[in-house]
């Protein structure tokens, strides 16, 4: 049995809009239109899509926060909204934008309270807590009230809070939002290890492609409440987003560079900064830099990875042309 199973999942919101002075008109927003997927134990799945795609709404239906308008959903074999309390004991949930901790309690006391709320045996709680404290380096601020923690520190606390009852599934909605690079890296490393050693299933939404790249073996892409693509990350990336952009800063302005295997996408400062798009399967960044240097002295370079939005846009185009096997039951 799949750990998560969603079939034709749907959620609409009815809004009342003012028209004229007294009249109000109802209109319906379809947040999740028709989403189907299944996730097996041990998988790491990135759930991505542009703003307003319906990611958070799906997550809320999976965790029992929202009642679906239609369709079928089971998580750990339970119907989430109907068996909410039972489900809460089996899954962990992290919201990047909301705190589950008590702002006026020291972090450690928040954890203690959660032990009582989730009815975790003392020994199991202590073991899990010790492990998290060590791996997430929380020792220095365990006794600090939550309201005084930095965002990075608090997020480590949030993730720990979601894991203390030993869930098999961890659902994270934008866990790295607002974190600096170091904090992101630390969190990713921790989650990867959790999956590798404990077999904890991960389902996360994010706008950071690096989160996906380092953590997820599988990607589910949604837009306008529908699944656009669903498959192994390696395949999707290679298929869809092979292009990279090399940004070169030159010592002096030159006309747009014409180089084999690369095209100029954008020119700034009269030509002293140029954006060169290349296919990384055909050409390496190093080779391209060498080619540029032969034309003009290079001051600085950087390589831009495709934005998640670009990947999604490409997916869209490919779907229109039916070049991609799209999961859209």
């Amino acid at each position, binding site marked *: 049995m799949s750990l998560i199973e969603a079939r034709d999942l749907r959620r609409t*919101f009815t809004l009342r809009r003012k028209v004229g002075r007294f009249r109000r008109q109802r209109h319906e927003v379809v947040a999740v239109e028709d989403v189907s997927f299944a996730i097996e134990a041990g998988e790491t799945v990135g759930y991505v899509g542009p703003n*307003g795609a319906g990611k958070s709404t799906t997550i*809320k239906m999976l*965790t*029992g*926060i*929202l*009642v679906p308008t239609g369709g079928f959903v089971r998580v750990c074999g339970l119907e989430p*909204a109907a068996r*909410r*309390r*039972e489900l*809460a*004991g089996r*899954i962990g*949930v992290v*919201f990047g*934008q*909301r*705190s*589950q901790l*008590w702002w*006026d*309690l020291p972090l450690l*006391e928040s954890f*203690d*309270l959660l032990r*009582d*709320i*989730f*009815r975790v045996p003392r020994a199991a709680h202590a073991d899990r807590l010790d492990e998290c404290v060590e791996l997430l380096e929380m020792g220095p601020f365990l006794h600090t009230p939550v309201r005084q923690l930095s965002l990075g520190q608090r997020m480590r606390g949030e993730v720990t809070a979601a894991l203390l009852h030993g869930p098999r599934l961890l659902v994270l909605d934008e866990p790295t939002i607002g974190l600096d690079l170091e904090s992101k890296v630390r969190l990713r490393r921790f989650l990867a290890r959790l999956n590798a050693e404990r077999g904890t299933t991960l389902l996360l939404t994010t706008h950071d492609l690096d989160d996906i790249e380092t953590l997820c073996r599988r990607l589910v892409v949604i837009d306008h409440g529908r699944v656009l693509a669903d498959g192994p990350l390696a395949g999707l990336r290679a298929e869809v987003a092979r292009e990279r952009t090399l940004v070169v800063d030159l010592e002096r302005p030159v006309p747009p560079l014409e180089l084999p295997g690369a095209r100029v996408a954008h020119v700034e400062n009269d030509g002293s900064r140029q954006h060169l798009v290349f296919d990384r399967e055909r050409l390496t960044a190093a080779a391209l830099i060498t080619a540029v240097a032969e034309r003009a002295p290079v001051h600085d370079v950087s390589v831009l990875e495709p934005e998640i939005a670009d990947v999604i846009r490409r997916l869209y185009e490919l779907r229109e042309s039916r070049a991609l096997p799209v999961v859209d039951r």
Partner: protein
Amino acid sequence: MASTVRAYRRVIGSRLRAQATYRLSFTVELCAQVIAGGLELVTILAVFHNTTSLGGFGRNDVLLMYGLATFGFGLADLAVSQLNHLGELIRTGKFDVLLVRPLGTLGQVLTLDVQLRRLGRAAIGFATLLFALSVADISWSMAKLALLVVAPLAGAVIFSSVWVAACSICFWLVDGREFANSVTYGSSMFNSYPINIFSAWLRRLMAFVVPGAFVAYYPALVLLERTDPLGLPGWLGWTSPLVAVAATAVAGGVWRFAVRHYRGTGS
């Protein structure tokens, strides 16, 4: 079950400890509550300065009703005042967090904080009740003593239920709190007086739809051995625990229905 009780005990304990740091404001607010309650009492006394009877009831009778209602309301206020924050929890989407914990949502909302300063209102009610009992003309029996103990508790449960049911509107309306407050505080005010002084439709609404008359009016009639000027049977005063049970069931149903309509926020 035992573990649920333990969880709530720990949550409440932690709230009390967090509050201990604000001792000064606690004292100030407690005083404010006592003064506000005292003023209401003075109002009643002022009314009886000009008249000897309200709807056929004398000053001491009215004080008894006021004491019963205010004590019950004070206890309810202590228990469910956190519902004042429900609208904000819903608007900001913080209610999400309560839904991913293995506890009931209502219990979690009620224990978000414990405001001991709210004891002020209950204390005023209790003091008034004691005073009213000392001056009232009551021939005591065991049954009446039992009613005296049960009535404020049943009253607290009835008020709490009204509060929960009324606040459930926050799941649909952004400023549902205004509505809820007018029902709860309105019903408290209503129940502090003999209900026959109010107009018939208001009486029916407040006495039976919102079962407030069972908090003070009918139990007081039993204690005083008075017949209802409105002609309803005397045994109604004994039914307040049953009404409390029914009110709890209705409020629980309304709450569960409302939570299923929780929409969260779009961001």
